[in-house]
């Protein structure tokens, strides 16, 4: 019945009789039904299924056991590793991206430099996954070109001096390859939003360059920087292909643990997998929501 109504009122495009308004019938929402149906079936439904499953035991009874299980030492270690890795790579990306943005956008360099970095960043921020891992292995792996060159030309043995690409720090360095350009891209509008007049107004009121940055520039940018940091954090937290291709299945970040669990039931309890998924969604959700809130706040300032 509803489908018939949608066909006659929405899809044919025939002018609707005024009566419809008189009876306060509004069939317009039917036009978005396919979208909602699709989203519910293939996005919300599957996630809800996992969320519900996280609070059930194998017999389908309600329980908090799976959530509590997340507090077990290896789960905690896994979340801790992922969060630390994400924090480090987000911090590196945020700081480096901010410095690069400051240099390229406000540093008095010719416009083509900025354009080149913007174009490149658009590509590099999307160049994640398996090929990125390959590129770094070819560069900084044990037989990587830079490793070999440093050894043969300058006598610097990277791996002997403590560097290892296949380590916590190595992974975050690889992440930097997409985090830095992402930061550059999302901080650029905020740097553009720093008005020339603010600097001049501060200056004519007696402020030095560093006083301007300390009292106006950085405080104005702060919500944006924090928001971008959270976005980078979530970006790193959800990364799987890159780290899997680089480290294999033994590196226990949460996405890999979940990946392994789905593949071969490494975890004894499948419902624990649901809890793991829930944990990921919650962390990603919270950081993305905070990002949106901070962005709103920053936009309010930059009108």
């Amino acid at each position: 019945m509803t489908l018939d109504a949608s066909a006659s009122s929405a899809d044919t495009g025939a002018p609707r009789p005024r009566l419809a308004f008189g009876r306060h019938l509004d069939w317009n929402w039917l036009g978005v039904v396919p979208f909602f149906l699709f989203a519910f079936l293939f996005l919300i439904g599957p996630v809800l299924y996992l969320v519900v499953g996280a609070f059930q035991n194998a017999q389908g009874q309600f329980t908090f056991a799976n959530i509590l299980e997340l507090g077990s030492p290896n789960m905690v270690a896994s979340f801790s590793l992922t969060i630390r890795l994400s924090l480090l790579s987000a911090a590196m990306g945020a700081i480096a991206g901010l410095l690069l943005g400051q240099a390229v956008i406000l540093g008095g360099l010719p416009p083509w430099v900025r354009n080149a970095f913007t174009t490149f960043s658009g590509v590099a921020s999307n160049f994640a996954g398996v090929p990125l891992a390959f590129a770094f292995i070819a560069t900084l792996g044990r037989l990587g070109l830079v490793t070999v060159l440093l050894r043969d030309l300058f006598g610097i043995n990277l791996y002997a001096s403590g560097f290892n690409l296949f380590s916590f720090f190595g992974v975050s360095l690889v992440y930097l390859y997409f985090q830095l350009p992402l930061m550059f891209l999302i901080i650029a509008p905020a740097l553009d939003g720093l008005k020339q007049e603010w600097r001049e107004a501060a200056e004519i009121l007696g402020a030095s360059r560093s006083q301007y940055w300390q009292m106006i520039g950085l405080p104005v940018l702060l919500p944006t920087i924090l928001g971008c940091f959270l976005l980078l954090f979530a970006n790193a937290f959800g990364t799987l292909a890159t780290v899997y291709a680089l480290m294999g299945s033994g590196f226990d970040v949460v996405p890999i643990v979940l990946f392994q669990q789905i593949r071969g039931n490494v975890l004894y309890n499948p419902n624990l997998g649901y809890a793991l998924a829930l944990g990921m969604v919650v962390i990603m959700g919270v950081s993305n929501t905070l990002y949106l809130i901070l962005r709103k706040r920053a936009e309010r300032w930059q009108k």
Partner: protein
Amino acid sequence: MKKRFPLVAILTALFAASFFIVPLIATFYFSLKMVRGELGFAAYASVFGSAAFLQTISYSTVASLIAIVIGAVIIVPTAYWVRLKVPHLRPVVEFISLLPLIVPPVVLVFGYIRLFGSSSWLPLTTTATGTDILLVIGYVVLSMPYMFRAVDNGMAAIDIATLTEAAESLGASRLRTIALVIFPNVRAAIISGAFLTFSISLGEFVLASLLNRPAFGPYLVQLGQDRAYEPAALAIMAFGFTWACMALMQLFATRKPGQRWLPRLTKPAAQRTTP
């Protein structure tokens, strides 16, 4: 704040540029060294000579293209309808379209496997075709944020509501309005979103691997474990591919409706500007 020589800025830019470029140069150089003692494209030849490469890449290409079409069919009418008739639903639709950014692919596919498994009311994962469909749907979902953003921006740029009213006041039916007025004007935006979708899904690993599909992403990982030089060659090609997709996306995203592909050779008649 006198203008001075931007030494710090130049050093920062150079440092960043080398961080970006050195891995590419190193990888490229590495990929040329397959044959001991000489530089050549042997690794590339080896990649293209492999049947598995050709099979997986064609599989992934087809899957991505279907995902693009389905994505466009779902997103474009929705974005249009939301702008035109149900603007109060806009926050909801926008929120849903952004959800895939907070649901990691590994979680999404986990849900698929459980919800559409053998005991499900819709047991898609029990047949190869069903799993293929699920993979394509997964790509549609993953690309939804970008597709919606691209199409919605495209529609924002042309004031869809007024155009529709104008077309209807001239007597066009709604279908004709969509076909003759709306679609041609947002075509560039759709194609722009399509290229982004393409670049995301062609080398996608997690969904393909967990759904056990013979796609390009799992092939890449396998190759990385078995070989040394071919992965480097593939990384370079992947970078080139991403670059091409982004360039085409940018081209379509910034293209104005009705703009020519090539600059005119003759000067157009001077346009009258309103004061």
